[in-house]
């Protein structure tokens, strides 16, 4: 019981209060150099339709990145769950977290840049340099790289709980390896897939640093616009309204997935 109190307190302080502030600000008037004027207005929301393209782009970049991440994470998680060196391999999965994420994003610029490692390599064979950076693909690549561990870990933990003998039973009953994976393993790691989806899709949708550093004008995401409104335009209510929209889009995405799961 006393833990409930602590839990409620944390939830209030760390989640509900900030969220309420954001919601509140979105219904107020902006002050010229940042901050808000205490008068009710829906003006901020009226700007949102002009960002539809941006929202759509953010959603598909996040969606494609999430699917790619899950596809890559599945075999890795499976391999680790069957390996005799689980702890060591899990350690390798989280090793990137020891380095600040901004530094890792910069590292990708060093690899992919016009004068980067790959292009220098191509140059040696007399090939024309390729523009890898500043497009949606670079953004997707780096999102996948950044959030892969967040997909591997929940998938691993649900795969580890799957009884090895049901996989053998499927094989015994005539399934080939692919059928075992699709018809028996996947349905039994649904919970892990769902958490992996949530852990990757939500932060990917709100990406800010990645599109800022490796994306171009055609690959800005909603996070960049929120930051611009807050820091440069200094229109806090619009930044708040966009944040709320982001929350709604993530929730809708997750609810859709969960409903599909239930219907099956």
């Amino acid at each position: 019981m006393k833990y409930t109190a602590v839990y409620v307190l944390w939830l209030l302080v760390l989640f509900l209060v900030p969220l309420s502030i954001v919601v509140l600000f979105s219904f107020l008037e902006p002050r010229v150099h940042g901050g808000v004027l205490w008068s009710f207005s829906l003006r901020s929301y009226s700007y949102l339709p002009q960002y539809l393209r941006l929202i759509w782009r953010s959603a598909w970049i996040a969606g494609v990145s999430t699917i790619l991440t899950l596809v890559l994470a599945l075999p890795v998680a499976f391999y680790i769950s069957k390996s005799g060196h689980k702890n060591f391999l899990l350690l390798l999965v989280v090793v990137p977290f020891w380095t600040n994420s901004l530094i890792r994003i910069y590292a990708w610029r060093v690899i992919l840049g016009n004068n980067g490692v790959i292009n220098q390599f191509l140059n040696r064979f007399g090939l024309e340099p390729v523009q890898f950076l500043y497009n949606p693909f670079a953004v997707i690549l780096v999102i996948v790289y950044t959030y892969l561990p967040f997909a591997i870990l929940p998938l691993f933990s649900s795969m580890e709980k799957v009884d090895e003998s049901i996989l053998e039973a499927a094989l015994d009953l005539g399934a080939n390896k692919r059928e075992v994976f699709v018809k028996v393993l996947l349905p039994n790691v649904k919970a892990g897939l769902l958490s992996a989806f949530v852990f990757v899709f939500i932060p990917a949708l709100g990406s800010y640093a990645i599109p800022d550093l490796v994306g171009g004008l055609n690959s800005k995401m909603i996070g960049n616009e929120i930051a611009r409104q807050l820091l440069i335009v200094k229109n806090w209510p619009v930044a708040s309204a966009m944040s709320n929209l982001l929350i709604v889009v993530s929730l809708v995405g997750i609810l859709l997935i969960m409903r599909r799961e239930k219907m099956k």
Partner: protein
Amino acid sequence: MGGEISILNVNKFFGDFQVLKNVSLEIRKGEFFSILGPSGCGKTTLLRVIAGFEDVQEGDVLLDGESILHLPANKRPVNIIFQSYALFPHLTVFENIAFPLRLKKFTESEIKERVGNLLNLIRMEEHAFKYPSQLSGGQKQRVAIARALANEPRVLLLDEPLSALDAKLRQELLIELDNLHDKVGITFVYVTHDQTEAISVSDRVALMNDGKIIQIGTPYEIYESPVNVFAATFIGETNLMKVDVLEVEEEYYVVEAPGVGVFRCYKDKEAKAGNRLILTLRPEKIRISKQKPMIFENVFHGIIEEEIYMGYQTKYFVRLDEGYIMKVYKQHVRYLLDEPILHWKDEVYVSWDPNDSFIVEVLTS
């Protein structure tokens, strides 16, 4: 319909550890064949070799005369029932049984019919749409059997399918399994460490220990004429005695056992005077009475040191005058109206027929 399995000189190692030591077995078409042995002796490994989950370093496995070692598990016409049943938790009973049929692209109506028949066979029609987590242990076990039979395998491999159930249910399901075997007519290879299970339903039993086959025979042969000390002690309970041969007669040896005395035993193995033998004498073959029986040989006097009432019988531990402690099991049948009930500290006579003891080993002297 059933398949015939030949296991030829199979050796299997896990690293340096040899699990199967030159195992050879002939399992006949349609037979209920049990592999019996203590925990860790390699039974599951042997079954997994047949099913295709383990490779072997030496030897061969034939099904109806053809080697199946090169076939992967999903291509072998044998199916296995795992110790844990391994039902698919995300599928209903119906879909669990239909799983192998869907893989083989049976039509919906064929699937309905075959699964229906199997559900009927295991008497689970009304549970068809439950999930495994909603079933009792016995029901799970039956679903696992139906699912394994759906493919119409030539051989069904069962790895201790009853070990997770309580004693009474185990008895019931064992009889059910036996009936099922009669109905479907395919070969059953049944692995267990429970001697009663193996003995009560099998046509033949292979007794295994430490990766080796110790004895193959009918349950009667395995119980009545164990080939060595391990076989004698693993199955049932027995009195083991080291005895010295004093005299060789036409049908019997006259022997002397330390702690017991001089008596006759049946000459079922060759030995000479002066040899040392190990004898087994089952406790239920020994008579026990307060009065001295009207026979002259194999009668010894002693005191009941302990009695264990078992309901259907009583186990007595009798200390003979010379010191040997003999286990004697007495059924609760009274042949004489005034036959006294025997109790702790009573003085008694034990006696047995010389034909009822067996020589399990002749030790070189």
